[in-house]
């Protein structure tokens, strides 16, 4: 049921859609800033190593534990130096790449596998569903950090094995979500209709179920983004995360924890990087959720003053 029986904006398809999106983004300053931050993170992840230069790799022990916020030793040392006298800014930039090259594949792999299996299981129901769910139960009922520890002791901790194990432990999250939604959708009329036309099940899943499940999955993925970064950091705390000379934000936080009281910047700054990135991702995700939902889009455009005056109530009606 839609209370605005004809959402006013829906009746004007002739307006350029892209400009509209950008305006919607501008209308939410928090989301706009988040988008800029994520762009910056992506940029640094790609070019950071080159930008950071030598000072991120070769240390100068005389600059060991250099305090931040001083330009005396060049821009590279504006955030101070680490124990080996490398530029902390440079290290953060290099770490961005490693962190992203762990987090992004983990999220993508678990998303793709979990979503495919989940949609398949939910669509077919029956034994396929049972088997998939029981396997997910097994993975889920063993604390993921301990599983990672056991597995990383078998296969020595490399970026590839960290990605593999973290992806495995995250698959059930997507699998459960996708299964639940697809099980619900497969009873709907349009799926029935497609089935009666003889559309193969793979195509139905791809064309009819996937697009509807996707937004939910993406929301889960954003939350997971943060989870994976923290999990990687916890692994580093236990000494089996990303291994030196590679460096990730999580590893920097873990290694810097001893210096928290003396050289706080060694762990606080990479910690901030994790927090800022995940908060940005979450803010942008919640913006996407609102912007793609016609029933809620108005929130982004209603003048703030009016909104506050409005009665606190009711919004989405689908």
């Amino acid at each position, binding site marked *: 049921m839609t209370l605005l029986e004809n959402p006013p904006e829906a009746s004007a398809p002739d307006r350029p859609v892209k400009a509209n999106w950008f305006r919607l983004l501008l209308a939410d300053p928090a989301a706009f800033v988040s988008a800029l931050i994520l762009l910056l993170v992506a940029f640094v992840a790609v070019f950071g190593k080159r930008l950071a230069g030598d000072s991120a790799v070769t240390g100068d022990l005389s600059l060991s534990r250099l305090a931040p916020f001083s330009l005396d030793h060049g821009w590279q040392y504006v955030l101070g130096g680490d124990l080996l006298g490398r530029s902390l800014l440079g290290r953060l930039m290099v770490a961005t790449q490693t962190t992203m090259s762990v987090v992004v594949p983990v999220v993508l792999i678990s998303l793709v596998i979990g979503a495919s299996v989940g949609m398949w299981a939910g669509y077919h129901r029956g034994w396929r569903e049972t088997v998939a769910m029981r396997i997910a139960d097994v993975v889920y009922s063993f604390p993921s950090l*301990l599983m990672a520890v056991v597995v990383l002791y078998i296969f020595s901790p490399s970026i590839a094995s960290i990605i593999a194990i973290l992806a495995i432990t995250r698959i059930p999250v997507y699998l459960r979500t996708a299964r639940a939604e697809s099980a619900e959708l497969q009873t709907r009329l349009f799926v029935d209709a497609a089935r009666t036309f003889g559309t193969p099940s793979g195509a139905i899943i791809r064309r009819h179920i996937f697009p509807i499940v996707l937004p939910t999955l993406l929301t889960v993925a954003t939350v997971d983004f943060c989870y994976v970064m923290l999990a990687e950091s916890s692994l580093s705390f236990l000494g089996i995360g990303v291994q030196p000379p590679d460096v990730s934000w999580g590893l920097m936080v873990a290694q810097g924890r001893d210096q*928290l009281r003396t050289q706080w910047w060694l762990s606080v700054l990479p910690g901030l990087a994790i927090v800022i990135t995940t908060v940005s991702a979450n803010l942008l995700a919640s913006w996407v959720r609102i912007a793609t939902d016609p029933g809620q889009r108005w929130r982004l455009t209603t003048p703030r003053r009016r909104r506050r005056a409005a009665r606190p109530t009711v919004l989405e009606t689908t």
Partner: protein
Amino acid sequence: MLTFLRRRTLTSLPPLLAVVLGVFVLARLTGDPAALYLPENATAQAREQFSAAHGFDQPIWSQLIDYLAQVTRLDFGTSLRTGEPAAVMALRAFPATLQLAVVTMLLACAVATAVGCWAALRPNGLGDRISSLMSMTAASVPDFWLAILGIWVFSIMLGVLPTSGVDAGGLSWVLPIAVLMLRPAGVLTQVVRGAMIAALGSPYVKVARSKGAGERRVVVRHALKNAAPPALTVAGDLAVGLINGAVVVESIFGWPGIGKLMIDSILQRDFAVLQAAVAITAISIFVLNIGIDLGYALLDSRVRQKVGAAA
């Protein structure tokens, strides 16, 4: 209801068994502990003796059969490290973690419900934005980092809390719980907020308002009960995840719980203890899942009907 419980227990058994078997095999793949437990210059013969004495020289499947035979007699083996029965060690450590987890989850749920509901009343308002930002931040702070910072600030700088340990009464609980609950509280707040926004927007809330129901009644009686199921699911997942946090928190605060026991057992290749600890954890997770299913039934009559139908 009983039938539901019985069926649920039966379907939970194979995964439970799979977890125990999986850990058994995986743990043994991490290597023979002989080198760890024998002196550095022990002879090859001594090592073989050690392996034979503990059965590590057998093929994995035969070790597994022996182990299962043992377990059916409720004998979980003896710790290599301490010489104590593994089950005793696991059972001793379990309550400490359970208490920690229960208090943490209760507090996290309380905080999340209060803040989430409040934020949902004015979505995108200033309060909502601030609480969202705070809950997102809470959910993304590394726990070990927060633990050390907490000790520094509250124990050393302010001197109001003990640094660690369990013997300072209620005060000992403050830091571990604060650290442990931050992530669940942050995530749950977001979930409650989302579910409450959806519930507050639904027609039945309009109807309730049209009956003259006040804000309190609308939120507590009408919306919250509808928003609870999704929050319950997430709370269950977070409770399972607490074990991860417990590993870190217990290590740092010297909390004698099962998370620390498991990680130590892995490090020390103390397989018997690891298996006992994993078994008890897995069982409690299954109990938790069943509890969550029952919680659904309690909250939602539609589910209750299905549960009843199974009876």
